[in-house]
């Protein structure tokens, strides 16, 4: 087990390095200086600014010092557009927000989706089952950027129950709509996966044996069926995490929650390479770390996996 974790860790490092090198090379290859603007600035001035940001150094030196600063000092460097801000400030400001609604979205998606899927499989071909299937089909065509306006339309404009944007330090009424908008499509996917695998497990031989022994239904479901049925859900959590991180950009933009995605879009629109790079690397590292945890959990839970 330990060797397996070590091997996965060693594989994660090159992945992360590739991500950094690719994004950095993209920035480096970008035509035009990031400091070029509509005003005609003398070339000497731009050269001076670039030197101040260390952009005149060779590629290898630049990327080397970037990686060194990130790894050793956790310093993602300066913003190229705002002199008084560096990327760390933006992360400190936005990350707690993203983490708050991201965490709740994840919890809601897993618990509601899992419960719905399992319940639908146990009550196969009843109204509950049809409800679960209906919800998961419907949610497929309602990605977060479609659901968010619909939610605001219904709950803010028509019903007036919840605010349509803002954060206010994470008060509950400001968190609800972002969480619903972000979690619904993943909740539906998890419900679908859990239902399918639970249906399969419930018809397998060891469940029949448990039934034949005369075990009560509750014990069969919770002690025997649940664990193998939830394994496919576990392996979906990695892609779901990536999807949620990506989706948080829409949530931040639409609900003005002030999370990290808002800075990402803003930096993309005004070509602030420093910020884009920092956020991409940070979120990439998080994703890779999360996938690592999921893989290890999977190997730990599933006895069929040999490592």
């Amino acid at each position, binding site marked *: 087990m330990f060797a397996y974790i070590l091997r996965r860790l060693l594989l994660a490092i090159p992945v992360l390095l590739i991500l950094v090198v690719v994004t950095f090379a993209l920035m480096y290859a970008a035509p035009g200086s990031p400091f070029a603007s509509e005003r005609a600035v003398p070339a000497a001035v731009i050269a001076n600014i670039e030197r101040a940001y260390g952009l005149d150094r060779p590629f290898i030196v630049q990327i080397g010092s970037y990686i060194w600063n990130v790894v050793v000092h956790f310093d993602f460097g300066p913003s190229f557009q705002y002199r008084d801000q560096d990327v760390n400030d933006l992360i400190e400001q936005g990350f707690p927000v993203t983490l708050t609604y991201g965490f709740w979205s994840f919890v809601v998606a897993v618990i509601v989706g899992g419960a719905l899927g399992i319940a639908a499989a146990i009550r196969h071909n009843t109204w509950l089952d049809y409800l679960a299937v209906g919800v998961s089909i419907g949610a497929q065509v309602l990605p977060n*950027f479609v659901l968010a306006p619909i939610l605001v339309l219904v709950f803010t404009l028509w019903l007036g129950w919840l605010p349509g944007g803002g954060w206010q330090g994470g008060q509950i009424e400001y968190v609800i709509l972002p969480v619903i908008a972000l979690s619904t499509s993943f909740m539906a996917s998890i419900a679908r996966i859990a239902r399918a695998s639970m249906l399969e497990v419930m018809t397998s031989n060891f469940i029949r044996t448990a039934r034949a022994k005369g075990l009560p239904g509750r014990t069969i479901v919770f002690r025997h069926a649940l664990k193998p049925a939830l394994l496919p859900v576990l392996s979906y959590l990695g892609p779901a995490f990536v999807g949620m991180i990506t989706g948080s950009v829409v949530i931040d933009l639409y609900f003005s929650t002030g999370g990290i995605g808002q800075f990402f879009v803003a930096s993309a629109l005004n070509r602030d390479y420093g910020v884009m790079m920092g956020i991409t690397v940070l979120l990439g590292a998080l994703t890779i770390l999360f996938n690592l945890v999921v893989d290890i959990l999977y190997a730990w839970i599933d006895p069929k996996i040999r490592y």
Partner: protein
Amino acid sequence: MAMFATGTAAETLAQSAPMGPPRSLWADARARFFRNRAAVASLIVLGLVAAFALFGPLVARHSIETIDWAILGNVDEAGGPCFLSGPDNEIPPCSDSGHYFGTDAQARDLFARTVQGTQISLMVGVVGALIAVVVGTLYGAISGYFGGRLDNVMMRIVDILMSIPYMFVLILLLVVFGRSILMLFVGIGLISWLDMARIARGQTLSLREKEFVEAAIATGVHPFRIILRHIVPNLLGVVIVYATLLVPSMIIYESFISFLGLGVQEPLTSWGALINEGADQMRQGLWMLLVPLFFFVVSLFSFFFLGDGLRDALDPKDR
């Protein structure tokens, strides 16, 4: 899947059948598909949407960027769809304005813009899926057929690419090389083939153990010829099913990026961009949100049902 190639088995089956000419597996699949009502309905709906995108420009009375000065400044009251025109509102009748779907916030014809947005969204979906089919199938077939170390390396590359939050890299790509439709295609094409490669590889692993591949090897056929002539045609069923399911996810990617304002650029538009504009205006003009939303939801629904129907028809394992 092996059934496509094992001609002998199909022939004996056909001979033992009491009557009628022998039916090919594709004919069987077609029959199964047309029995599925939801899938057929989806196909019809998609046909209608495609016709809308193709022939819409002939029906539209305005270009996508002409501003209707008679409506500008009073869009909230007069910009609605013209078939809602009546004595109790200020919307000009269709014979006057020709704004079948109303106008957007800048008083541009929403019908023309929806037609154009539908064109781009469908094109992104189809091109993305096509790239996935060509690149992903070949990549997966080569990786699976040769196996061993090559397979290991090729699949590790796919693993690595899959564990990167590609949407951020794609946006990076769009920012660095300028926001254009071409760049959007390149970016979406870069990631769309990964899943397909995995699926094709999995199928190839079992296909290469089949007798007809062994026979081809024994007669000295070149490996690449075996892949193109014997492996790939047998992958087609699965590939078609997943390609159909890929189209909506490509459309979702593009709409996502355009929703953020990073995709197609004005005056061009797409479903995502239209939904974004509509979402900004829903307090004043709800139709601006509902029209593109309707096309988006209906088309995506149809693609998913079509994919399901094709899977039932082409993938005998799942039945």
